[in-house]
């Protein structure tokens, strides 16, 4: 997986967060924490998972997503998901 792809996925995730939660794109960086910095809650995370599933066409396991803390974690798990066959 090349850097370019990771960048693309980051902007997809960023776009999803802006669209779903009306956040400011500038506030969303790789190191941003979902729960503290962006004030998301566990039910928001479920919304995000559903949205990412639609985007990638892959099924995300809820237990995998429970470990996610930062935007970078989200991007990485999407990267992994896309690598899986």
């Amino acid at each position, binding site marked *: 997986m090349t850097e370019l792809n990771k960048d693309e996925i980051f902007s997809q995730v960023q776009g999803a967060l802006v*669209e*779903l*939660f*009306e956040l400011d794109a500038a506030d969303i960086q790789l190191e941003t924490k979902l729960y503290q910095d962006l004030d998301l*809650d*566990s*039910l*928001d*995370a*479920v*919304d995000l998972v559903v949205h990412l599933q639609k985007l990638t066409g892959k099924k995300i396991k*809820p237990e995998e997503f429970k470990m996610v803390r930062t935007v970078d974690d989200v991007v990485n798990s999407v990267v992994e998901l896309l690598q899986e066959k």
Partner: protein
Amino acid sequence: MSLSEKINKIWRIFATGFCFVLFGTGGLALTFIVFPLLTFSLENSKKRELKVQKIIQRSFYLFCETMRISGAIDYKFADAEKLKNDQNCLIVANHPSLIDYVLITSRLGQCDCLVKQAIWHNPFMKGVVKSAGYIPNKDPENLLEDCSKRLEDGNVLLIFPEGTRTTPGKKSTLQRGAAQIAVKTETDLRIVHIKVTPSFLTKEKKWYQVPDSRPFFHVEVKDKISIQPFIEESSSPSIAVRKLNKHLYDVLLAPEQKTE
């Protein structure tokens, strides 16, 4: 403080202690005597849960009257009759004291409740919350489904969006769970506002730290909030949730923050 005020204060400590013991033994008696009897007589679990909820209402009504008559507290409802016809509806309330749930439930013939994890481990309460079929606040994935099933059956669901009791003097926030459930199940919300003066049974004080004068619990049943405008005016459900939560804050907590 005059002598009679001092005597009254000591009496209230005693009465409050008595009520705590009564609550604990009541919980155990229901768990080990009354509810097991229901298990034999009512096979259908849904009917049994409704029966349990009815028994809880009756017991709480008696309990509230005991607290009032013993002089531990005084309380008054405003517009309690509004609750009578509520169906398929969320009831959201602020949470200043330990007995908010007891007070509100004493007026609700049927009421499901969203219960935080700690209570499922409390020996005096776990049997009761389980028998009543209350909803554990645990997995976010199952939570919405559980709530939506109950609401579809026409049930009323009581939630304290603060998640736990208010800490006096500290700025409270509302967790978005209640708003999430309302938006995603498209359910209207009944607002209940509780005001306790002087404050009593708060989070950071012990039960025996009673105030100098008798605490008065004023429970005001307010109008319903219709959920549709919030959904229609928002571009996504998550945004509707945020708007609704802000509105809930204004009606539930903002008056409190101004007076203190």
